[in-house]
């Protein structure tokens, strides 16, 4: 049982709680960097996919988990990132500039969209973002001149610091690129939470009325959250495009938006770990299903099975473990840390009653 005795505020918001936690993450990082020497090309590709989804999940987590605004339109921002990245690189901008630029463009677009969107909340925002996700598909077709429409856009191998990075030719280098981006995004997210802005976001999520009373500017906080969330998602979009090699109007459909939201809920809303846990589930579930169906002797692919299983898992999680995989993980960890003093009702949820949002 570890006891933390915090003596100052700076101590409370340290990046790592103690040496042990730091050690755990250091080991995890070393394993992540050693992975290409352990895994084969196929599984390395899968891990890369997990990391890309995790980056996108981090983006949405900032908006949904941290600021409490559910977005069902983040596939649209993945698309904005991927297309702006592809167009910039096609016109000769080097990757090192085009990649962050794609993120910034997506962030700006997100903030512009946020300005009307922050007046809505809850269900209205969810519906508006659904509409956005559907519109994105049509807009990509209509702006065929830039986006290539239905025939799509290709991603060429990129050059970074003298290395040529190609998803198929040099999967190891691509893995390292994604890993570094994931680490930077995670650190950024973690540091954001320690800053006044991150606290303001949490305040907005927990109660807008109390946040206003504490001097938090709601609209400003929401707009910034939207912008930063979209910027991270845009980066993930570029990586997703590079991973797929080709994107068109159907790559970033509304199903991707929904999967992304489901993913962070399964992982655990409001935690960085949640984005990664959720990404692991979403990336490995298709493999697991295909292995199971093969083992049970089924040869015919059943349409919709994957989504149905994913959805069932989600329903079970919302019913029995609303904090997601991360919540379960915390409970198990705390049980061991406190052993034998853990009590049954320690994590009991407080009973809450709903009030109408029509009066607010």
């Amino acid at each position: 049982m570890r006891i933390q005795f915090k003596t100052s505020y700076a101590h409370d918001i340290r990046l790592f709680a103690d040496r042990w936690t730091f050690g755990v993450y250091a080991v995890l990082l070393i394993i992540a960097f050693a992975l290409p020497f352990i895994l084969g090309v196929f599984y390395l590709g899968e891990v890369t996919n997990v990391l890309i989804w995790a980056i996108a999940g981090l983006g949405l987590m900032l908006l949904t988990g941290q600021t409490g605004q559910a977005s069902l339109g983040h596939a649209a921002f993945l698309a904005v990132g991927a297309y702006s990245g592809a167009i910039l690189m096609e016109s000769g901008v080097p990757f090192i500039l085009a990649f962050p630029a794609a993120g910034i463009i997506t962030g700006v677009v997100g903030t512009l969209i946020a300005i009307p969107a922050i007046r809505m909340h809850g269900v209205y925002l969810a519906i508006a973002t659904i509409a956005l996700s559907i519109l994105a598909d049509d807009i990509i077709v209509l702006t065929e001149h830039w986006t290539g429409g239905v025939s799509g856009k290709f991603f060429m191998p990129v050059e970074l610091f003298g290395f040529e990075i190609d998803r198929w030719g040099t999967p190891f280098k691509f893995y390292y690129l994604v890993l570094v981006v994931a680490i930077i995004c995670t650190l950024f997210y973690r540091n954001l939470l320690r800053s006044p802005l991150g606290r303001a976001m949490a305040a907005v999520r927990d109660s807008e009325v109390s946040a206003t009373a504490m001097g938090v500017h709601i609209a400003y906080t929401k707009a910034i959250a939207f912008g930063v969330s979209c910027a991270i998602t845009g980066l993930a979009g570029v990586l997703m495009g590079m991973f797929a090699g080709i994107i068109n109007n159907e790559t970033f459909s509304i199903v991707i938006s929904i999967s992304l939201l489901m993913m962070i809920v399964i992982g655990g809303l409001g935690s960085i770990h949640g984005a990664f846990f959720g990404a692991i589930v979403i990336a490995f579930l298709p493999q697991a299903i295909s292995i199971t169906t093969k083992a049970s002797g089924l040869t015919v692919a059943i349409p919709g099975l994957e989504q149905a299983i994913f959805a069932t898992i989600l329903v079970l999680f919302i019913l029995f473990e609303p904090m997601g995989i991360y919540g379960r993980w915390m409970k198990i960890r705390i049980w061991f840390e406190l052993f034998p003093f853990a009590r049954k009702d320690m994590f009991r949820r407080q009973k809450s009653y709903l009030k109408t949002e029509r009066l607010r």
Partner: protein
Amino acid sequence: MDVLQLLVSGLANGCVYGLIALGFVLIYKATEAVNFAQGDFMMFGAFVTLGLTNAQYIGLPFWLAAPIAIGIMALLGYLLDFFILRHLFGQSQVAIVILTIALGFVIRFIAGAIWGHLPVTLESPLALGDIWVGGVVLGLADVAVIVVTVMLTYFLYVFFQKTKIGLAMQAASQNQMAAYYMGIPVRRVQGLVWGLSGAVAAVAGILFASKGAIDPNAGLLGIKAFAAAVIGGFGSLPGALAGGLIVGVIEPFASRYMAAGYSQIAPYALLLFVLVFRPHGLFSQVRTKKV
């Protein structure tokens, strides 16, 4: 005549959207939750009727099968609330949004597994054919859709405004705890409204299936019904119908008079427009609370 023809077909389509939107609004009015699976409910209701009616399945007469299907869907809605949504009592709306989206996927999968993924037609007596009225072709199914929708909306409106249980439903959504204090059995009321919305979804499904073929993806129509509900202002029953009619009428006119590619985005563009300029719909129910 051209305009009139477009108007009639738009109105009939709009009524189906309006009926699905009615389902959302019912649940929203009574539980403050939005059922994103309402479109899939509608699809499932249509398939249940089809399974009971069509000769290749059970082959009951339509007028017997339709009430049974409505009953089955009402029961299904109630059970869904009893087994799943009741356990989310008091949780945030976002959790319910995500949950119902997930349920929609499951319902779509089940329907696909039972009735296949190919479009099928309901052997409905409503799909009799067309009549000519002053140069306008009126599908009998369209007429039936419009009549049934208007009647149902009026009935539900009276139910919510005048009856004791309707008022109890409204109270339960506005403040759960206060409703408890007033002796309203909040959980049972919520179960009832889920059942009611299942029944409305079944009616919508039957009417939709009478107008043409259905397949498991027909539930995606629910997104257009969202546009309808939002344009009308969530929480208003006549508003839902009005919103449905607006969306339904805009569609054929947009595809007739606008360039291809722009026409299908018209309903969503209108939705965003309404959300930006009148965020709570045309029949707004929102008032600002003083703290």
